[in-house]
Every structure is written in structure tokens, then in C-alpha cells.
């Protein structure tokens, strides 16, 4: 026996110990968890993803969403803060409305890969499916700043298609003002001279449209700088004429996945606290 053997055996033993303790034990404990059924006839929880939602998980994976969004609501006892009276509180995740209960291992038995996440550059989305509508998700995915001006999330405009409206507007078409749709992914604003040209051409139409809004009382004078600006701000929030933004298959799949994320909704017995 020489030193080589000592090193080999030592390395083997120390490493096996951690492999046994951190991998094999949890594997035995958790690998065969079954879905939960309250009464024999009830639908089991959780259910495996299917169809579009399953395809959407691939899009979620491919674009690295996990690097800003965790999928785990933590216990009411986790993490503390003090209010202005110096009173200590815990459990921000649930209080932020990210879920109605903490997550447990059973919530993930059909996840593959299991994207718990380790970063909250964006909010937790374990339960995002029960928090927002499909239309909201599409607009937000297309350009998050259209809904939250502070957002630093990338826009996924490349998952959407800009097209001419043929016949009726598509039901799925995003309801966003032209500032978001003229240059998909960015926020567009015409330069002063461009705006002048636009006013020249269709100023009257824009003005009459402006006045049809019930809140816009008192008229507007497009010849004053202030009126010009107010008209522009209004015009930017109106939809582009004859143009629509519709989700591609990938966008539909991604949003289907997001809507299927309801990990902290159904009560399970082990998630008491």
C-alpha cells in the first residue's frame, strides 16, 4: 500500500459519505412520493402537465426564466421584518400573495426538470397561474414594461408575430397601444418632426378620437406645445390601425405553462404552517 492508495481510499470514503447522506437518503425518502387525493373519488393533486403547457415548459427552460424567477413559496415562519412599531413579522412570500400556502415536495413530483430557482430578480411564480389572466401574461411577455414601468424583465417580442389585420382582428391579438407595437420589443415615440408630419396628415382624426374619450373634457389645441404633447401621449396608447400582434405557437405554449403554474393553491396535509 502506498500513498496513492491512501489518497484514493480517503477520497472514495469521504465522497461516498456525502453521496450517501445528501443524495441517496433523500432519494429514498422522496423519490416515490404519490399524488394527494383527499377522498377516493377526487382528482389527484398534482397532475402532470399536458399538451401546450408541457411544450411551454421547454420554452421556459430554453430561455432561462429560472435565473430570475423561483418557483417555491416559503413558510409563514420564514424570513423576518419589523413594522414601523418595531413589531416582528415573518412569512413575506405568502403575504405578498405569491401563494396561499408554503410549497412541499409533493408539489413537484411531475416537474422535470424541477426548477425551484435560486434567484428572485423577479417575483416567485410557483403560483402565477392563479394570479394573472391569459391576456395579461401575453402582454407582459411581449413587453413587461407595458404593464410595469419599473420592470427589468427582457421582452420576448420574438415569440410574437406582427401582421396586417385581414378581416376581423384576431381574438388573441394583444391589446397594447402603438408605443409598444410599432417597434416590437421596444417603446416607440416619434421625433418632434415625425409627430408634426403625422399631425399634418391625420391630426383631425386623432383629435376627434381624443375628444371621444369621456375623461377628455375641455377640448384640446394641437397648436400649443402642451396640446401637442397631450395628444401624442394619448395617440401612443391607441392601437395601431390595421396591424395586430399575435402570439406564435411558442408564446401560446409558454403562457399555457405559466397558467398551469398553480403550485400553492390546492391544500395538502403536510403544508400546515
Amino acid at each position: 500500500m502506498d500513498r496513492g492508495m491512501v489518497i484514493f481510499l480517503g477520497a472514495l470514503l469521504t465522497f461516498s459519505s456525502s453521496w450517501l447522506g445528501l443524495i441517496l437518503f433523500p432519494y429514498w425518502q422522496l423519490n416515490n412520493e404519490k399524488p394527494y387525493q383527499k377522498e377516493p373519488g377526487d382528482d389527484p393533486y398534482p397532475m402532470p402537465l399536458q399538451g401546450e403547457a408541457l411544450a411551454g415548459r421547454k420554452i421556459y427552460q430554453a430561455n432561462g426564466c429560472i435565473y430570475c424567477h423561483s418557483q417555491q413559496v416559503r413558510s409563514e415562519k420564514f424570513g423576518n421584518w419589523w413594522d414601523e412599531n418595531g413589531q416582528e413579522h415573518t412569512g413575506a412570500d405568502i403575504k405578498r400573495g405569491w401563494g396561499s400556502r408554503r410549497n412541499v415536495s409533493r408539489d413537484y413530483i411531475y416537474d422535470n426538470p424541477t426548477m425551484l430557482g435560486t434567484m428572485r430578480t423577479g417575483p416567485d411564480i410557483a403560483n402565477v397561474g392563479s394570479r394573472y389572466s391569459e391576456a395579461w401574461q401575453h402582454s407582459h411577455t411581449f413587453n413587461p414594461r407595458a404593464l410595469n414601468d419599473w420592470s427589468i424583465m427582457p421582452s420576448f417580442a420574438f415569440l410574437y408575430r406582427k401582421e396586417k389585420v385581414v378581416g376581423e382582428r384576431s381574438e388573441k391579438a394583444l391589446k397594447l397601444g402603438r408605443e409598444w407595437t410599432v417597434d416590437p420589443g421596444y417603446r416607440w415615440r416619434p421625433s418632434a418632426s415625425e409627430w408634426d408630419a403625422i399631425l399634418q396628415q391625420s391630426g383631425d382624426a386623432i383629435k376627434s378620437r381624443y375628444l371621444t374619450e369621456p375623461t377628455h373634457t375641455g377640448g384640446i389645441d394641437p397648436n400649443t406645445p402642451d396640446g401637442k404633447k397631450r395628444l401624442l401621449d394619448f395617440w401612443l396608447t391607441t392601437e395601431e390601425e390595421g396591424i395586430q400582434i399575435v402570439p406564435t405557437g411558442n408564446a401560446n405554449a409558454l403562457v399555457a405553462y405559466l397558467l398551469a403554474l398553480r403550485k400553492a393553491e390546492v391544500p395538502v396535509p403536510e403544508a400546515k404552517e
Partner: protein
Amino acid sequence: MSSVTVIPLHDRERAAAERASIDGSCRGPVLYFTASALFWLLAGSILAIIASAKLHSPYFLTGIPELTFGRVRMAHLQAVSIGWTSMVTMGGSVWMMCRLCRTELIYPKLLYVSATLWNIGTLLSVGGILLGDGQSVEWLDAPPYAPPFFVAGLGIVSAWVAATFRRRREKHVYVTQWYILAALFWFPWLYTVAVFMIFWSPATGVVQPIVNWWFNHNFLGLWLTPVAVGTAYYLIPKIIGRPIHSYYLSITGFWALALFYSWAGMHHLIGGPIPAWLSTASTVGSMMMFIPVIAVGINHHMTMRNHFHRLKYSPALRFTVFGAITYTWVSFQGSIESLKDFSEVAHFTHYTVAHAHLGAYGFVTMIFFGLYYYMIPRLTGREWSSSTLIRIHFWCASVGITIYFVSLSIGGWWQGRMLNNPDVSFGNITRYLLPYLFSRTVAGILLTIGHIAFATSFVMNLAGWGKKRTGGPTFFVEKVA
């Protein structure tokens, strides 16, 4: 210096010739590994700047799907972890192993195959991720077609290092060899188990993140750390010409690291849907890491004592000592971070990102830079052509990583405090972080400037622009005795 004994000239020449011949036998494969690593470092740096800029300026390059934040971030991690650090680890291990075993490298051509496999794997991984095949499994984002290349490439290197060790002429097994042998045994196992349990035969639910974090933490702990610490154990004594202060301590440190480091990692899932005992076990492992870290810290410090002035003269020493000191600090910080109360704030924030970079850059990468500055001239037989470039590299790297660490640590800590308080809106947290995220981009640009200076030096050396080394231990600025 009184400790210098007079050595007969012919002994000296013979030993120098032997060393030169050993270095010569590694030249091709090690230069291939290190040149490839450097390429991936540059690629990773560019990806890093893009990803960083996108976090404070979301409209930057927004229309290109290949460059969306999530993909660039995954590609960056693969480029620097698999491309840069792993390739230096392998190349450096081969060279140090040959030197320490006092034996020439056999069948060097197969190591070219290994490095080529590794490069193909990394290219598939980085390219595949950008094109939309990323896996969103942290540190293991490589698309499914890449891992076989890594397993094969790694197998060759491990076998070569073991074979070199079997052929050793030096009777004593130096502590660096312990670290290298262990790392090259651990990593293939670690990697294969992780890929197997997450991709090839996926475990159920939360077992996957458990395996994932066991891998991630051990990637640093049992792959990069042993080789980087081993490198410091070789370079520091060699450069200053003084044996390790306490060899006993270095061996103890090795075993403590082997035993405890592998148990850390689960605290990254703190508060998550995993059994509480797992996080606790990792907290214990992390706290025990104080032992090997203090052992290494004391040892390196005592070895350097009275020799700190040499930092002025030796570029390799400067980088290596920077890395060794950072090792102590980043490990202390890591142990503290595993504590529940601390982690409740730091988890899910940029604080962890700062810590990861202090480890992977401030410690591992800095020591590897030191290794390059020492090893490359001995392989090519040429000195570095410009000390200005080296100085630019050092100052950009050290100032850059400091800005990076300080800004994200402060921002991340307050981010965590605010996340724990539901009265602070998410929008306010995001706005609060912007200046810190912007500082990170500045730091990234500084680091990249350093890397470009470094790559320029490297290419000039390979191209033969440096002064020829004149045999024996050159590089003296100070006259000995």
C-alpha cells in the same frame, strides 16, 4: 541570504535539464488546454457584460432571441465554468503532476484528443444554449448532446494523471499531488452522477434540485478548490524559495476539506420544499469548513511571512497570493452564509451572486492567472514580453472583482431585507437595485480589459515576441546572495 547552500554546478545543470525536459514533454497539450481556456474566458467575459447590461438596461439588444438574458446567462456560466476554469484545472493538473512526479508526460497526443473533445463539448454547450437548447438546470445547462464529450475528455485526463502518478520518480508525494489526484477522481464521479440523476434517468421532483446543488457546490469544492489550493501550495513556496510553513497542517487541511466540503451545498435550498435535516446537515458541513480553511490560511500566511515584499517583483506570486487570501475570506463568508438566519436574507439575492464570483474569480481564477504567469514561460521558453500588460491585467482584475463584490454584496443584502418585508413593493426593490447592477457592468468591463491584456500577453508569448529564457531559473530581478 544565508540559507542558500552552495550547489555543485553540474548537479544544478542536470536538475535544470531534467526539469526542462519534463516541461518540454507537457508543452503541446498543456498549451492547448490553456489557450483554449483563455479563449473561453474571453467568450465568457463578453457574454457576462451582455447579461449584466441587460439587467439594468432591458432594451439593450432586446430583439435577438439568441441574446435574451436567460440564455446569455446560461452560456456565460458554461463558458467560464466548463470552458475556462475546468480547462485550466486539467491543463494545470497535468503540468504540476509531471513536475511533482519528476516524470515526462507519456502519449501526449491523446491529451490533444481530450482537449479537442472538451472544446467541442463547450462549443456545443455555449452555442446550443444561445440557439435555444439550454436546460435551465443551474451549472448543468449544457444541452443533452454535450455531456458525453465532457465525460470522455475528462476520462482521458484523469487516466493520464493517474498514469503519470504511477510512473513517478520522485518518492515523496507532495500535498499538491494529493489535491490533484483527489479532484480528478471526484469530479468525473460527481459529474456523471449529477448528469445521470438529472438527465439520463431523471429523479422525481425535488430530488433533482438536491442533486443539482450537491453538484454545484462540489463543482467549486471538490473540483476547482482542490486544484487551486494545490496550485497555491506549489507556486508560493516555489516562487519565494521557501518550503511550506507547516507541511503537517497542509495534509490535515486536505483531509478536512475532503470530509467536510462535500457535505455543503444544500443550504442553497434553505426554506425550500426539501427535508429540513438536509439543510442542517449542510450547515454543519459548511461550519466545519472553518478547519481546513484556517489551516490553509495560516499555512500560506506563515509561508509568505517576511516575503511579502516579493509581491512587487513576481507577477505569478501577486496573483496567487491575491487568490489565496481571497480563499480564506470567501470560505469564511460561505460558512457564515450557510447559517439559517443569515441565509434567510441572503438567499434569492445578488448577495449570493457576489459570493459565487468572489469564489470563482477572486480565488480560483486569480490563482489560475498566477499559474499561467509561472507556467507558460517555462513551457514556451520565453519570458513575458511586457510587464505593463501584466500590471494592467492585475489591477483591472483586482479592482474589478472588488467593485463587483462590494456593490452586489451591499445591494444584495438590502434586496434580501426588502424581499422579506411585504410592505416594500417589488417595483421599489427592482428600482433600488439598478445602481448596484450598473456597477456590476462597470466591474465586468474592467475585468474584460484585464483579460484582453492577458490574452495579448499570452498570444505574444506564443508568437515568440518575448525574450528567450536562458535556461535554469531565470527571471531574477533581485540578485541572490
